Every structure is written in structure tokens, then in C-alpha cells.
């Protein structure tokens, strides 16, 4: 009788899961990181269905067999303290399951934190993705261009997103390409993604950041290498430069549409320092002068979105105007060879 609720729930789940996973974004991966995660999720669902089955079967047996009915009217249930063997069993088996899942977790976490298997020989393309209320800025240091609310990259090419924020904590997520990561104001975090299919994917902020949060989406387009090169050429030829004033006005505006520029904001507003020593990835091309030591100073240069009318920059000097980009100048050459 009380099984109805969960059984009903299971029914809905099967009904919705079986017709195909295509509408279930997370289980419809288009890149190696998302594929790893999708496999992990399906593995954990199957394991957990096994656990559920055991509990449900026992539960049904107990309720059917030992319910009070006319025939057992005078029955006095026995006094039972417990049973060391039974209790050991239901301690030991869960420990084995947890140990198994722990191994899977550490392996897969390691896999998605790094450049995916099969792409390690390629130098990842760097794109800075920074959030401000309520938009995403994508800076391409190697190409010297910047886009707002859309990002293009070549298919089958590892991309290293470097994430930070000009405001509240946001979380950068393109579910079909991989898991999400926070973008915060006082450190830079890294996300390695590869797309193996050409096409448009929806990306969004998943960490609540105020009024415009629901609209904080962007398009991630994975294109062929030729298409991508052509796009870069077009941007450089036609898009305006991103001046500091223009950037300030962008930060001060709540929502903007898609925009394109032929220079980046990294020169006059560099990203915050690297995350603490926990980051065990190789960021050798990320130079020392962006390290933890300067983290605090960086935050001052690193503007917060202007309140309403006046920008905070108005009273501030720009200490590092036109300083070199924080990534290696050779990067552009690397791309051309690709």
C-alpha cells in the first residue's frame, strides 16, 4: 500500500527515460568530458537501482508477511536484540559499494579536470570567460579578440576556459560539453573542454547571481577549423576595438546582446591570480606575476560592476595600462600551425 508513491515515481522515471536520452541534455554528451560524466552518472544510477531493489524487496516482504490480520490476533512478537552477522553484512556490503564508487569518482574527477584523453598532444586553446551582471565576456588572448554572450571554437580542439567574475560568484556550464565550474572575483579557475561535434550548445550560469540570473545564457558554437579561421579574420577586419570606456559601459549595463571586438579587456583589466596550490594542473604558460601574491592588488584593478550611474573606475588610475597579456605571446603562432 505505501509502496504506491515510490512505485509511481519509478514508473514516471522509466516512462520518461526510456523514449531516449536525447532530451536529457546531461546524458547526451558531445565531447569527451561530458561523455565521461554521462557514463559515470549512468553507472551510479544502475548501482543505486540495485541498492533500491534490495531495500524495496525486503520492505514489501516485511509489510505483506507481518501485517496485523485476523489470523495472527493473539500473536506476541519475539524480543530480538539484533544479529551480529546480519548487521555485519549490511555494514560490509555498503562499504564495498562506497569504495567502488570512490575509485570511480577519483578517476573520473581526475579525467575531467585535465585535458581529455586523446587530446593531450595538442596545446589547449585559451579562452578567458568572465562574468558580470548578467553576461559572459570571452577573451581570446591568442587571437586578440573578445566576444560577449557567445563563444566560438574549433571542433576537436581542447579549449582551456579560464574563469573569473566581475561580480557575484557564477558557475560556467555547457552541459553537453562537460561539467561546470565557479567563476569568482578573487581567483581564476580552469575548465578543459573539447567538442567532438559541430554545432551550437547552450551554456549558462548556474549559480544564482541576482535579478537577471535566469537570462544569463550564452551560445557555444563548435565549428570546423577553416570556419573558425575565417571567423577570426572577419572579426579582426570588421569588429571595433574594445576600449576601456566601452568595457566600463558594458560592465555597467545589466544585460547586453551578443557583441564582438577586435581586442580584449585583459590588457587594462587583467584576471585575478591563480587558485591556491590545490590546483594540480599544469599552467606553465600562466605567468608568475599573476600568482597568489598579487591577488589582493589585482582585486583593486579588477573592477566591480558600476553601481548605477557612475562607474567605480572614474576615480581610479589604471596602473597597468597596456601591460603585456598574461599569456605567452607565442600562443598565436601555435594556433596558426594547427
Amino acid at each position, binding site marked *: 500500500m*505505501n509502496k*504506491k*508513491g*515510490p512505485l509511481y*515515481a519509478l514508473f514516471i522515471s522509466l516512462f*520518461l527515460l526510456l523514449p531516449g536520452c536525447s532530451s*536529457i*541534455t*546531461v546524458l547526451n554528451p558531445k565531447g569527451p568530458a561530458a561523455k565521461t*560524466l554521462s557514463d*559515470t*552518472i549512468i553507472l*551510479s544510477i544502475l548501482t*543505486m537501482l540495485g541498492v*533500491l531493489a534490495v*531495500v524495496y524487496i525486503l*520492505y514489501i516482504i*516485511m*509489510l505483506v508477511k*507481518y*501485517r*496485523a490480520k485476523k489470523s495472527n490476533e493473539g500473536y506476541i*512478537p519475539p*524480543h*530480538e536484540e*539484533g544479529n551480529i552477522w*546480519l548487521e555485519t553484512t*549490511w555494514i560490509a556490503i*555498503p*562499504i564495498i559499494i562506497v569504495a567502488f*564508487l*570512490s575509485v*570511480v*569518482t*577519483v578517476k*573520473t*574527477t*581526475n579525467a*575531467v579536470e585535465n585535458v581529455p584523453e586523446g587530446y593531450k598532444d595538442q596545446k589547449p586553446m585559451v579562452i578567458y570567460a568572465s562574468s558580470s551582471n548578467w553576461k559572459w565576456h570571452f577573451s581570446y588572448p591568442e587571437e586578440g579578440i573578445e566576444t560577449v554572450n557567445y563563444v566560438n571554437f574549433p571542433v576537436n580542439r581542447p579549449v582551456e576556459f579560464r574563469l573569473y567574475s566581475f*561580480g557575484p*560568484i557564477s*558557475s560556467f556550464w555547457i*552541459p553537453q560539453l562537460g*561539467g*561546470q*565550474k*565557479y567563476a569568482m572575483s578573487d581567483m581564476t579557475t*580552469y575548465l578543459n573542454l573539447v567538442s567532438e561535434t559541430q554545432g551550437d550548445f547552450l551554456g549558462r550560469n*548556474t549559480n*544564482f547571481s*541576482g*535579478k*537577471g*540570473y*535566469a537570462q544569463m545564457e550564452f551560445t557555444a558554437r563548435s565549428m570546423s577549423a577553416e570556419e573558425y579561421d575565417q571567423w577570426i579574420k572577419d572579426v579582426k577586419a570588421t569588429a571595433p576595438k574594445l576600449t576601456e570606456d566601452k568595457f566600463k559601459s558594458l560592465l555597467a549595463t545589466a544585460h547586453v546582446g551578443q557583441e564582438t571586438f577586435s581586442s580584449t579587456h585583459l590588457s587594462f583589466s587583467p584576471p585575478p591570480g591563480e*587558485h591556491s596550490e*590545490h590546483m594540480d594542473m599544469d599552467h606553465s604558460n600562466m605567468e608568475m606575476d599573476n600568482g597568489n601574491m598579487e591577488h*589582493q592588488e589585482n*582585486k583593486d584593478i579588477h573592477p566591480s560592476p558600476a*553601481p548605477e550611474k557612475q562607474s567605480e573606475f572614474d576615480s581610479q588610475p589604471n596602473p597597468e595600462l597596456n601591460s603585456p597579456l598574461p599569456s605567452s605571446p607565442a600562443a598565436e603562432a601555435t594556433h596558426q600551425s594547427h
Partner: protein
Amino acid sequence: MNFDLEKFKVHGEPLIYGAMISIALVSIGIVVGLTVFKKWGWLWREWLTTVDHKRIGVMYILAALLMLFRGGIDALMMRLQTAAPEMKFLDAQHYNEVFTTHGLIMILFMAMPFIIGLMNVVVPLQIGARDVAFPRLNAVSFWLFFFGAMLLNISFVVGGSPDAGWSAYFPLASNQFSPTVGNNYYSLALQISGIGTLMTGVNFIVTILKMRAPGMKLMRMPMFTWSVLITNVIIVFAFPVLTVALALMMFDRLFGSQFFTMANGGMDMLWANLFWVWGHPEVYIVILPAFGIYSEIIATFSKKNLYGYTSMVASMLIISLLSFIVWAHHFYTMGQGVMVNGFFSISTMAIAVPTGVKIFNWLFTLRKGRISFTTPMLYSLAFIPIFTIGGVTGVMLAMASADYQYHNTMFLVAHFHYVLIPGAVFAVIAGFHYWFPKVFGFRLNERIGKHAFWWIIISFNVAFFPLFILGLMGMTRRMYTYSAETGFGPLNMISFAGALGLAIGFVILVYNIYWSTRYMPRDENGDPWDARTLEWATHSPIPEYNFAVVPKVKSRDAFWAMKHDKQPLFEEPITKIHMPSNTGKPFVLGVVFFFLGFFLVFSMWIPAIVAGVGVLIVLAAMSFERDHGFYIPADKVIKTEKKLGGGTV
């Protein structure tokens, strides 16, 4: 002083104006009602000044029920707003306030006080005590909780509610991004009620350790008392962290300090760490007593003792330890690397082991029993399969890599509702039905109770199961709207239907209280369920001194042993009984704290200083008061016992 009326006003929403009017009407109604029926004196003497743990417990539960409806209406508004794409019911700001207060109220002002209320009613009875260790402190705890809750509630109509989510992550919750006073309310309302909770923690640890009846060793305590002891240890360790975090938040918001800001050395993730160092144990503060409640009910209605008592206690202890070392699983996506995420993944998944032990022990308590399906038992039985879904999805979320895909999505929302509603809400409802006849002397109607049960159980699954799938489809939490192309619409509509069903279930539940109060037969004996533990050994309703004679405990399930193994429980003759006297000071302290909080919210410094001095004066008055309570003479006790049916004489 520059008095600016404008900042008190909340503009533009017909719903808010409606709420204002209804709050005003209800307040006027209460005042008029009390005056017409000349009940002011009664209210003051019997309730506002009481130090009786049973009455304080009842007030906690009443407040929690009220908050359940407040939080429930928030929930309905949220589900309605997201029922279809591009809904225009609420705007973004209003939606943000609604989900923030929904979370805050349901966790801190509904689940926890409901549990503390049951704790207050039941624990002293279960251990054979006359009251808690510090009855006046208990009253202080209640009034601080109550006025903290009221402070948060008026934010809706005065000045604006908090809008940065119940976790209030910085820098979003800073003045820069949340310029309304909403988050000032957050820091002060939680602070005030949190102090009350911390004192409850101290009070109950002392009560349980020092005031057990003779012969009740720790390993003879009823399981609910065990769960309450462990819970209060968690409270005492976790709440100071909240106190400090909220104080820092208040400094940031009111005095311009920069602990969590973006510039000048502020660390936004420090708030997240502090919040979850408290916040994760907090969920066990509401879950562990639920485990205790289920243990009592399942044993009672299977007519068996609890299976694996020792491993039940051990697993709760292990859960309480683990609850403190898993907090970073709330932000796996912060980029702390494989090592840290791996550690927190494993410690989180490890919680599944002791929890599994409990599930199997309950299942084996049922085995060879004679199970009767009363309303409290139905909730307890429904808990097992539903909570297991919540538990296994918890293991799925605990896997750091997979969490990169679930984090902040509806999958997470579904998981914690699948844990917290069967874990905490069904438990308090079950406990409410189970202990109701103890407190009031009559049972709730079983037929209406079962109607409510089926509405609640089925609607719960309809409301929350679709959210698992929505999460995997990529719908994130806290989105006030979405476009039709996302395909989120149909499942959200199903979920909204479920939410409506839940609301109907809760209305039936409350109707049951009304109906039963009017029509259910009175004069139950003290033990309507043929139960096992000490609280059933006294009369219903319970006399103010609980037990005329302090019971002597010789085994677990002492009352059962008395009834079925003929072990005598009450051996001493009746003597005079010492009782604490009532006091109005805790109530006054609550009121003064309320005003202190209110003035601080609006940075009205001079009135705030006056209120602060008021707090000190009341505290001093309480400290220097000489009141040794009073004695109820033996002949009066005997008279009362005779009147109640004299089970113990």
C-alpha cells in the same frame, strides 16, 4: 536623525499589499478576540510566562505549523511561477525573495522548531524527569526563536525580504549587489533565533545527561532521546560557527567591514565555507531526531523492541561525526582540485553506510512483528522507500565528477526534498500524530489522518520526482523563468500539480486537528497505542509535574517491561514536588531583542542603542533575581492523581 519612511515601504506588488492587509486584519482580529473574551490574563499567565516544557513544546509546534503554511505558500508561488514557460505571475525580484524565504523558513523556522517542540514535549517525559535542566533558559530559547522568526516574517512587508538565496553567498549578499535591507534581516533574524537554538542545545545536553530517572543508563535510553542528545551535541558545535558568520555578515552590511567583499582582502568563498560548516551539520540536526521518532513509532506499531539498538546508536554517532567533514561537497565546483574533492566525496558517501544500517535495522524491526497501520505508522513506513531514493541520489551527488553536472540544478533540489521531506517533515507529522494524545488526551481522527496521508505521499512524489529529470535536462535552480524551447514546461506543470496536492494534504491535516478537537472521544488512558517508553507511563493530559513519583528504570522500554513483564516502575510514596515559577522576563527579552534587531536592520542607531541597553537590563534583571520556585504539597499531588485516574498511585 534622518528618518526616512521611504525605506520601510515595499512597492508595486498587489500580492504584498494583500499580505499587508491580511496581516493587519488577523492582528486586529486576535487583539479584539482576546479582549472580547477577556483572555489577556489567561494568555499571559498560562502561555507567555510559562516555563513548563510541555507548553513551550506546544508553542514551538504551533509556531512551526504557522511557518509551514507561510513556507508552503512560498513554495506554491514558486511552482506556479515556473509551471509554464515565460510565466508572468512573479517578477524576478519577487521570485528571488520567495525562494530565499522559502528555504530559510522551512529549514530554520519550520523543521527545526517543530523538532525542538517535539523534543521539549517528549524528552523530559522519556527520561522520567520533571522538567528540563534549565526551565527558564528554555523559555528564553523559545522566545528568541519566536521573535527571530517574526523579524524575518515582517521583512516581507516592511523593507523587503532577503533575496540572495538561503545560503546568501557573497558578494551577491553584500550591499553592493543586494542594496535592500533584506539581507540585514537575514543576518539579524537568524542571529537572534540561532542564539535561542544554541541555548536549547546546552539545555538538552544537560537535561539528558543529568536528569535521567534512576536506573536509566545511557544504553537504556529510548532511541528518540538518544537522537536528541546527539543532535544537541551537533547544535552546540555547529551553531557558534553560524553566530560568527552572521556577525561578520552584519559587520559587512551595517558597518562597512570587508570580510566577504570583492575588494580590500575580502574572500567570498570564506562565507561559503563558514555557511556550510554550519549548514551541513544543520541538515543532520533536522534528520537525526526524525530517525529517533521513526524508531519509536516503528517499534511501537510492530509490537517489537527496536532491532539492533546498539548499532542504531553507533550509526547516529558516526553520522554526527561525518556531518562535520563533508561541507565542501556543497562547492565541488569551486576548483579545489582532485585531492580535496576526492576527500569530500569519500567522506560524503561514507554517510550512506551508517544510514543504510539504520534502514535495515528498521526493516528487521518489522520482521516477525505484528504491524498495525495507524496514521503515524503510515508516515514512518512511507519514509523508508522514499528516503532511500533521497539517499541513493545523495550518493550520486556525492561523486564529485558527476556533481559537476548536477550542481545547482533541479536534480539537487529534488534530492534534498526527497531527503528532507520524508526525513524531517513526515517525521514531525508522524510524531505529531503519535504524541498528540499524550499532550491533549485524545487521538486525532484516523480516517481523516489517512486521507491527508495519501494526499501528501502521492503528491510529494508527483511534485518532486519530475525535478530529478528536469535537473538532468539542464534546468538550474532559482531560475524564475525559462523559454519554451528548453522543453522544461510539461514536467514543471506536473510538479505544480503535485505541489497543489501537497497543499490539499496539509489543509486536510489541519482540518483533522480542528475536527478531532471537537468530536474525538476524550478520556483516553495515558497509553492509547500500547507503547513502550516512559512518556506513556503518566496521565494524558500530563500533569504539570509529569510524574507524581519518579520512575525506577530497570531495562530498555521500561514502560513495556512494567506492563508485560510486571516490573514495578513507581515504588516510592508521593512526596511534595518542587517546581520552577513562571516568569515574564524571557518574553520581554524576546520583545526587546526583536526591536534591537529591527532597528539594526534599518541602521537606526539611537533606538538600537536604547534597545541594546534594554537587552542588558532584562538580562541583569534575570541574573539578579532570587526565585527558588515553589513546592506542590503531597496532598495536592495525591488529589490531582486521583482526579486523573491515578495510574501511578
